[in-house]
């Protein structure tokens, strides 16, 4: 089936990345994030007690990555143009290494996928962005994939 919205030019943009941003992870920011969630887990709050764990010290809660944003790539989607503040349908996270106080995390978002399908209201475009969180040792700590819908 031929795409109605996505043209060749749009599809060529898959893989394009936004500007990276680098953050210094502060202990206080981790504590405040955990407190905002109402999460009293000592791993995220208490350096002394977290030292007894296998992590050997405090780490950030998994969704702390939310506090480290990065610009989305500049993408033009066929007839929709560049303004596609879409519905955030949800997020898929993968975690590989803990994020710790004092880490320097580089965050970058790329256009991971573009798909079109026919919905009840006409053609819909599914826009998947993937954000990577990489520490100062070059280790990938986490990825987040988020799919927005535009029609």
């Amino acid at each position, binding site marked *: 089936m031929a795409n109605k919205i996505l043209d060749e030019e749009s599809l060529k943009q898959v893989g394009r990345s936004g500007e990276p941003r680098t953050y210094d992870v502060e202990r206080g*920011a981790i504590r*405040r*994030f955990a*407190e*905002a*969630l*109402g*999460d009293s*887990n*000592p*791993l995220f709050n208490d350096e002394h*007690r977290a030292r*007894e*764990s*296998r*992590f050997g010290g405090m780490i950030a*809660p*998994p*969704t702390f990555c*939310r*506090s480290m*944003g990065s610009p989305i790539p500049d993408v033009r989607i066929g007839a929709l143009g560049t303004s596609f503040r879409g519905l*955030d*349908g*949800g*997020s*898929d*996270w*993968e*975690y590989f290494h803990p994020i710790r106080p004092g880490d320097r995390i580089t965050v970058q978002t790329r256009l991971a996928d573009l798909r079109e399908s026919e919905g009840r209201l006409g053609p819909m475009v599914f826009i998947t962005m993937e954000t990577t969180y990489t520490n100062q040792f070059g280790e990938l700590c986490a990825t987040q994939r988020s799919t927005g819908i535009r029609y």
Partner: protein
Amino acid sequence: MAHQLYFEDVEVGTEIGPLEKNPTTQQLVKYAGASGDFYQIHYDKDFALANKLPGVILHGALKNGFLGQLMTDFAGPEGWLRKLSVQYRGMDQPGSKVLCRGKVIKKYHDKDQHLVDCEIWLENAKGEKTTPGSATVVLPARHTH
């Protein structure tokens, strides 16, 4: 440190939680500050009403965070949350209780890791699943193979 769960302790069908949360407008403001998400629908009632919402609503990301807590509590200090997925299906408002729950749907090994797949969700006071999702955790084992 919290109680540690081991791979041998869980079976398919083992229930997770519930983790009860009673979000207030104050919590939404704290979350806005901690996360940097200052979209006004989460703390400015007039703005939310003008946008045809019933009032201020919880950040989807806050509910994602609650479900993250459900799973890091489950994994314990020796476990590891490997994957976490959430889908935002319905809105939730402050001033009303929400429950995070889940159940184990699969136990398996991958290389030397002991893994557990779970179905998770956040439900409102009426029992409606406004934020379903899934998670995979790595658990320590009492006996290694």
